[in-house]
């Protein structure tokens, strides 16, 4: 599907979605609450079939967090980018680990690095940080570690 | 050789009363056995390192002494001066006993071996049986080490080793039997004498060939050598049953492994390749006389070291088997084949078709 066709199809699926201009692929801006049903449709809808989630990113914009999902279809070879704006103090979004198994690990990384709480995640534990880690999430912009971080 | 040992024996009995003479003989033999044990360990480890080096396009040890021949001595010295550590949480008695059991077993098995013509510690009439029986005791040492270490890797390694040694003993025994039925004796000296007119490998047709191959495979497994080194599979279990050992206790395991290889290869050389018996064809030929000029000890060690080289060659070529495949190989392939092979050998022996 081309970019325009995708745009029409996605507007059908989720009327509240907005689109960002520019970028290599179609950028879809959604509300985090609508993410799970939308994701299910993206995965299962027969003319979309987004079965390959190749990148899960969390970005700290200082005022809010953004979860970015790069999705691609191995059948149709089209790609979209889904972005969901999260509240910075209580970031919460539904997990998609049951749809794309790779999300399980990637969400665990986002959980510990940014503190995003993935609801209904099967195994939301620390993966990289040592057990019993307390304090801030290291990849956030305001993280300070006076011992291990060297300012150049 | 025969003369030297006989002379010493006669002189001792002439000079002292029989009890003291016997004790002196014990002492001499004990010293010789320990000396041989240490020497074999050093030589074989050096040999292993050189063999692996030439197969892997490397140089091998080359710093300590000319061509690095003192490398293993230096390593042993280093291991001796290391602290003999006993980790917390181990079963102290078993942990410390295990390496000695393995070592003692390896030393005891040296007894009935015939190193040269008339050069033998104990010409027991059930020599072959003695070797197979005693050498299987070493699994107890390994199981003890694995259990006492209180380490899961060690335990897994020891259990693997137990399953492996117990099963491979069968086909090793059956392949030995193939020669025994042809010889009609368990006495090592008689087995060697029976090969005066040609080694069994030449006289015994196909059954002995098959028995020989199965024997080599089975003893490789019995001594826990690659490709059957599951007990210490280092990519899976770090070091298997001796994970927790260090210093001299580790060195004893290591030396015992090599002495075991020597023993089984010596046995193989004795049974299939005529032991110290020079290469003979028929009786009283000119060729035999020429061969007799080479000392019998050279023949024995030549054959043994050739077999050791083959086993090392296996190690540096093959990947390791998995535990279930290891047991499959034994129970589905080696055991049936060696049983049929034994029947064949018996048939040949009865019909006197061998040369």
């Amino acid at each position, binding site marked *: 599907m081309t970019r325009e066709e995708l745009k029409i199809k996605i507007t059908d699926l989720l009327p509240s979605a907005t689109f960002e201009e520019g970028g290599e692929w179609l950028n879809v801006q959604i509300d985090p609450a609508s993410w799970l049903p939308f994701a299910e449709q993206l995965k299962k809808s027969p003319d979309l079939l987004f079965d390959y989630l190749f990148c899960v990113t969390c970005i700290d914009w200082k005022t809010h967090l953004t979860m970015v999902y790069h999705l691609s279809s191995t059948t149709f070879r089209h790609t979209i980018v889904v972005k969901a704006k999260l509240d910075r103090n209580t970031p919460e979004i539904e997990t998609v680990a049951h749809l794309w198994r790779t999300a399980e690990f990637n969400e665990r990384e986002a959980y510990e690095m940014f503190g995003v709480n993935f609801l209904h995640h099967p195994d939301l534990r620390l993966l990289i940080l040592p057990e019993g880690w307390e304090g801030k999430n290291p990849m956030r912009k305001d993280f300070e570690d006076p011992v291990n971080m060297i300012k*150049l | 050789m025969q003369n030297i040992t006989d002379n010493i024996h006669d002189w001792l009995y002439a000079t002292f009363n029989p009890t003291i003479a016997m004790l002196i003989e014990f002492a001499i033999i004990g010293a010789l056995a320990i000396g041989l044990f240490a020497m074999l360990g050093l030589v074989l480890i050096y040999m292993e390192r050189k063999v692996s080096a*030439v*197969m892997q*396009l*490397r140089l091998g040890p*080359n710093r300590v002494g000319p061509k690095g021949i003192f490398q293993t001595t230096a390593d042993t010295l280093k291991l001796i001066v290391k602290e003999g550590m006993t980790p917390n949480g181990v079963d102290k008695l078993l942990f410390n006993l295990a390496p000695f059991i393995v070592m003692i077993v390896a030393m005891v098995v040296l007894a009935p071996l015939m190193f040269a013509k008339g050069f033998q510690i104990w010409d027991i009439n059930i020599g072959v049986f003695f070797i197979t029986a005693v050498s299987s005791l070493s699994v107890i040492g390994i199981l003890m080490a694995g259990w006492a270490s209180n380490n899961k890797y060690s335990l897994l390694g020891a259990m693997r080793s137990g399953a492996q040694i117990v099963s491979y003993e069968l086909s090793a025994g059956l392949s030995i039997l193939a020669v025994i039925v042809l010889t009609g004796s368990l006495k090592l000296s008689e087995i060697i004498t029976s090969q005066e007119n040609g080694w069994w490998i030449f006289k015994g047709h196909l059954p002995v060939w098959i028995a020989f191959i199965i024997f080599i495979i089975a003893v490789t497994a019995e001594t826990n050598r690659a490709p059957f080194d599951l007990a210490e599979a280092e990519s899976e279990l770090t070091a298997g049953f001796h994970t927790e050992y260090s210093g001299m206790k580790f060195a004893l395991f290591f030396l015992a492994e090599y002495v075991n290889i020597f023993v089984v290869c010596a046995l193989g050389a004795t049974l299939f390749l005529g032991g110290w018996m020079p290469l003979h064809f028929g009786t009283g030929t000119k060729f035999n006389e020429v061969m007799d000029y080479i000392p019998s000890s050279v023949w024995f060690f030549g054959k043994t070291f050739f077999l050791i080289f083959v086993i090392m060659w296996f190690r540096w070529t093959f990947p390791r088997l998995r535990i279930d495949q290891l047991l499959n190989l034994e129970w589905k392939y080696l055991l049936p084949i060696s049983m049929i092979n034994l029947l064949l050998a018996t048939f040949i022996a009865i019909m006197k078709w061998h040369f």
Partner: protein
Amino acid sequence: MGFIKNYLGEVLGAVKSLATGMKLTGKYALKHRKEKITQLYPDNRDTLLLPERFRGEVVLIHDENNEHACTGCTACEIACPNGSIKIITKFDLTPDGKKKKALDTFVYHLDMCTMCNLCIEACPTDAIKMDQAFEHSVTNRNDLIKILNKPGSKIRDGVE
């Protein structure tokens, strides 16, 4: 019969595949003298040649008059991603009485250097280069902090 045939075929195939492997290692064992690849490293130190682009450590090029080309512009310090270069500058008086920025000390932290070559790329006067020395081990970490400009050295005339 088919079963026995398969069984024997399996065994023979296995033995053949193993023999092929053994032939290869056996061949290498025999041809070892020709095929061996190990070098006797510390012994061949004199004949060991490293390619001229090899990145061993950063050096400041001095010519026979003990002059270098470093103007103290700190381009390398800015280019360095991990802060292993520290340039301390001073002000020289030029003959016509003007103050001119010049290099005082070129501090190089070999312990932090990752040999990324970015400083060499950044240098506008090609004053520094990568040297081939690679035996960097020292017993004291402080020995790895080096001062690259030799005592008494000064900037070559005509380098701006």
